[in-house]
């Protein structure tokens, strides 16, 4: 599946891979990293993920922001671990002793989540949704599931635009969100319309599909074959994961 690119932008090395390779790689990487327990192996995994991010040409700033957002989400858990896990006290804060075990565990969690997140962003975040759906189908996921996924992608946009249109229509007639009964009632109408609208639309889509001979089976058009790049990437990936395992055991 090719996507439209403005002139003058070349594809990143990762983007030239078969989407299937990328899904498989992301999955294998995540499983491998979750398995690892040693700081050395996980540091290596982080380095690998960073390498993937560079290969995918992820924009550094916004990527960092995303990773930090997720880490921030986990901060509370991470911060409480040293104080709850026990182990030899390393330092004390406000009279609570921070145990070595907990500190170690928190560090490992942090490394794991960063590595998986970064690798997933690099491998899958740059894939457009249709390509991801097709890769999943080609990997043997039930076609119905994939179709559902693709429908969702396609019609979330339609729904969103319907919502935007209705909101615009309301604003054009002087609607401003306020904490008033009128406001809540209008918003209720808006969401009601959205629901009824989507239900009716789904019926019309079903009709349109039947008009084109749809009988419950989905056929996919594209045929990708993994190329030399994919096999090479797979080999490097396997070697890296083996190295990760060796590091972890050692």
């Amino acid at each position, binding site marked *: 599946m090719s996507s439209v690119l403005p002139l003058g932008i070349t594809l990143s090395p990762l983007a030239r891979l078969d989407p299937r390779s990328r899904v498989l790689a992301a999955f294998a990487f995540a499983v491998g990293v979750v398995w690892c327990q040693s700081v050395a192996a996980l540091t290596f995994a982080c380095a690998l993920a960073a390498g993937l991010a560079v290969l995918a040409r992820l924009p550094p700033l916004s990527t960092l922001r995303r990773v930090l957002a997720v880490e921030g989400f986990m901060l509370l858990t991470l911060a409480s671990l040293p104080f709850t896990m026990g182990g030899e006290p390393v330092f004390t804060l406000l009279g609570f002793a921070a145990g070595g075990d907990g500190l170690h565990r928190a560090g490992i969690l942090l490394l794991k989540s960063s590595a998986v997140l970064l690798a997933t962003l690099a491998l899958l975040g740059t894939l457009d949704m249709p390509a991801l759906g097709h890769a999943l189908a080609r990997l043997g996921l039930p076609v119905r599931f994939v179709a559902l996924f*693709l429908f969702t992608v396609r019609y979330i946009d339609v729904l969103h635009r319907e919502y935007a249109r209705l909101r615009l229509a309301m604003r054009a007639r002087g609607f401003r969100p306020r904490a008033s009964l009128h406001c809540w009632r209008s918003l209720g109408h808006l969401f009601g319309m959205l629901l009824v609208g989507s239900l009716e639309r789904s019926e019309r889509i079903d009709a349109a599909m039947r008009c*084109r*001979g749809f009988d419950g089976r989905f*056929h996919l058009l594209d045929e990708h074959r993994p190329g030399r790049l994919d096999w090479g990437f797979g080999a490097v990936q396997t070697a890296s994961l083996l190295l990760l395992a060796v590091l972890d055991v050692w």
Partner: protein
Amino acid sequence: MSAHLFQLRDIRFGYDPDHPVLDGVDFALTTGERVALCGANGSGKTTLLHVMVGLLTPSSGSVVAFGRERRCEGDFHEVRAQAGLLFQDSDDQLFCPTVAEDVAFGPLNLGQSRAEARRAADDALAQVGLDGFGHRVTHKLSGGQKRLVALASVLAMRPQVLLLDEPTNGLDRDARARLLGVLASLPQAMVVIAHDDDALAALTRRRVILEAGRLLG
């Protein structure tokens, strides 16, 4: 009767029983014929096309299509492959992520191989003047482009009859002229729902008007 692609007799239909939308409609379409279907908003034009391909079932009357009377859902599978319906709103019709997949959806359902379907899709896109649009993402197209892609998706099934629900709806003057040109060049029989009379008058030879649930020739 065999010259008739469609023959509708005394069709009655209403979304709710108290308010019939179609109240005894008779209609016939012969091979190669182009008919304009006119009528006020809400007079039931879209409803009539949907009855013709079995998306709506009339409460009484008979639909004879391609030489056989069609009653149940199963009867209409063949009809829908032969009579391509262009929906009033293209967003209802285009649901695949990319244009090529959408246009190939029908041919694949008809049992064509991927290569054949791809070729049918390419041909159909070329026919509406959208060569090379195959890889575009459907929901990022403009309204007019969606209209043309929807038409291509109908043409890709190589139907004998085209049922077009306001085909020039939402197109600018150029796109409209191009679409009318495309339609004029097609050999198929057509029923075209039209509000803009003069443009479509050139295309069609017969004109029927839906009024108060009946069809006036």
